[in-house]
């Protein structure tokens, strides 16, 4: 099965939901025109990245009219949106939403919220509490957002949960000037890990970054699709708006896993036990197989003891 994937490397307007909804509609129309099956928008592209105290004003709940409007746009084309989500108990999340066939198919709430250096996400957002693969109409995918990918554990979990492709919306800022390379050093690091994950976990990495500037912070663009052999299927421009397409064939995953069945050989129990040891928690005891009759035998025995006690009391009287 071949999936035609488009990445809209947009430059959203900071804090302007209306303008960005219009941008989404425009790019979805473009995706449909280019016969894309699936369209990726970057992290927080419906709101802009440095939203800060605007968060409560631009948050959308899953059952809001705006979410419904977005869902309606996914009838001809599946797409990933990046937005601020509000939960029923009024926590705000940096969320990626997968829309398909007119509905929300899956939501991933960003787990790892960078709060150091130039980042301040944990001030505004609640952390997501799960890593899950999900079934799209094309196959089993996972959604991870930006910093989530800087923790190998998330890709590991998604791969073990059956994801054949990781969709990663991002709002990654450019930084680090190094001689002798065309891109900033942060871009270089991302390209290295995207390729590393694709080959190590034998899956597709579909990385959608944004472009533009906010308060002097530029976003490096460079969106890309990497196949399980580490080959670049699509690549967007650095530092500019762009719209790229790539054909993803899930048969490639099968071929790579046939040649190198690394996931098959992964020992999850070892990982669990060693993590528990490092964390200072006792390893789980192996479960004793309960024999069905054992309970009945014990009950019978107890009754016998009771009976014999009664008899001995009667005898004594």
């Amino acid at each position, binding site marked *: 099965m071949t999936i035609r994937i488009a990445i809209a490397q947009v430059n959203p307007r900071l804090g302007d939901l209306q303008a960005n909804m219009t941008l989404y509609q425009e790019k979805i129309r473009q995706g449909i025109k280019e016969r894309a099956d699936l369209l990726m928008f970057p992290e927080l592209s419906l709101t802009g990245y440095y939203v*800060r105290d605007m968060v409560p004003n631009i948050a959308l709940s899953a059952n809001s009219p705006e979410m419904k409007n977005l869902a309606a746009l996914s009838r001809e084309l599946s797409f990933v949106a990046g937005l601020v989500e509000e939960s029923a108990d009024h926590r705000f999340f940096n969320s990626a939403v997968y829309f398909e066939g007119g509905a929300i198919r899956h939501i991933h709430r960003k787990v790892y919220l960078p709060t150091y250096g130039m980042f301040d996400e944990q001030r505004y957002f609640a952390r997501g509490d799960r890593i899950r693969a999900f079934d799209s109409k094309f196959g089993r995918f996972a959604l991870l957002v930006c910093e989530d990918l800087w923790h190998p554990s998330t890709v590991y979990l998604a791969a073990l949960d059956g994801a054949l492709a990781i969709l990663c919306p991002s709002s990654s800022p450019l930084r680090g000037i190094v001689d002798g390379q065309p891109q900033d050093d942060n871009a270089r690091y991302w390209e290295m890990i995207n390729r590393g994950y694709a080959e190590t976990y034998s899956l597709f990495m579909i990385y959608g970054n944004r472009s533009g500037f906010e308060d002097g912070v*530029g976003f490096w663009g460079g969106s890309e699709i990497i196949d399980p052999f580490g080959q670049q299927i699509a690549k967007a421009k*650095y530092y500019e708006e762009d719209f790229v397409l790539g054909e993803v064939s899930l048969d490639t995953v099968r071929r790579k896993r046939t040649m190198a069945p690394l996931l098959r050989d992964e020992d999850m129990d070892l990982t669990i036990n060693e993590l528990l040891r490092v964390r200072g928690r006792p390893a789980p005891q192996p479960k004793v197989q309960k024999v069905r009759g054992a309970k009945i035998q014990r009950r019978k025995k107890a009754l016998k003891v009771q009976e014999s006690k009664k008899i001995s009391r009667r005898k004594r009287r």
Partner: protein
Amino acid sequence: MIQIPVNTTLLRRILVAFVRNEVEKTGIRRVVVGLSGGVDSSLSALLAAEALGSKNVLGIMMPYKSSNPDSQAHAELVVQKSAIESLAVDITSQIDAYFECFPEADAKRRGNKMARERMTILYDHSARWNALVLGTSNKTELLLGYGTLYGDMASAINPLGDLYKTQVWALAEAMGVSLAIVQKRPSADLWVGQTDEDELGFSYRDVDRLLYCMVDQRYTRAELMATGFAEPFIDDISRRIMNSQFKRRLPVIAKVSQRTIDRDFRYSRDWGK
């Protein structure tokens, strides 16, 4: 020996995109920049010309009677090369009129007054011409506090604020700024014979290497000494950075409410853009 990365191709690409994006998103199409004839303002002007088109950049030369005549000649070189718009406004009469009332003022006070007078002229022209004021302060002078608060430090957007002087020189040369400008001794030209490096007591290349390690790479004091920087130099620069922090922040506001500007009232400058 520590080498500061200069990747001029990448810097040029990013900084041109920065000027274009940050200006145009405000709905404005033009910038004004003070042209001192020095390498910083020359570079800033060229970046803006490439980003916005030369006819959308106005370079304003603002000499005082004691300014080095080379300054104006160098500024004119930049104007010719880049084909930007230009204007000359002599500030002698207004500065002298003011100091007639305070004739005892020292060179430093006079220098700061000139810097702030230039700022007011740039802002007036930004209103006159519907433009933004383009900054020229580089990272070295910003970290050391070697600039006039609300004078040359004032601007709307500043493409050089994260470049060390070493990088400004490299990028200016790569973009074709005349070698006469790139290679001359940097000077604020606020009094005759003034040079930055004499005033500071060290060279830009030396302090840039230290700042790169100390600030960008967060070396500890022990690591800095192991790298070969002298203790007194480390101490002097550390002190200058700390003591000039006030120049890099908004004025201190007394917090009395539950929500105070710039403390718990937090929005991006590009809010809505």
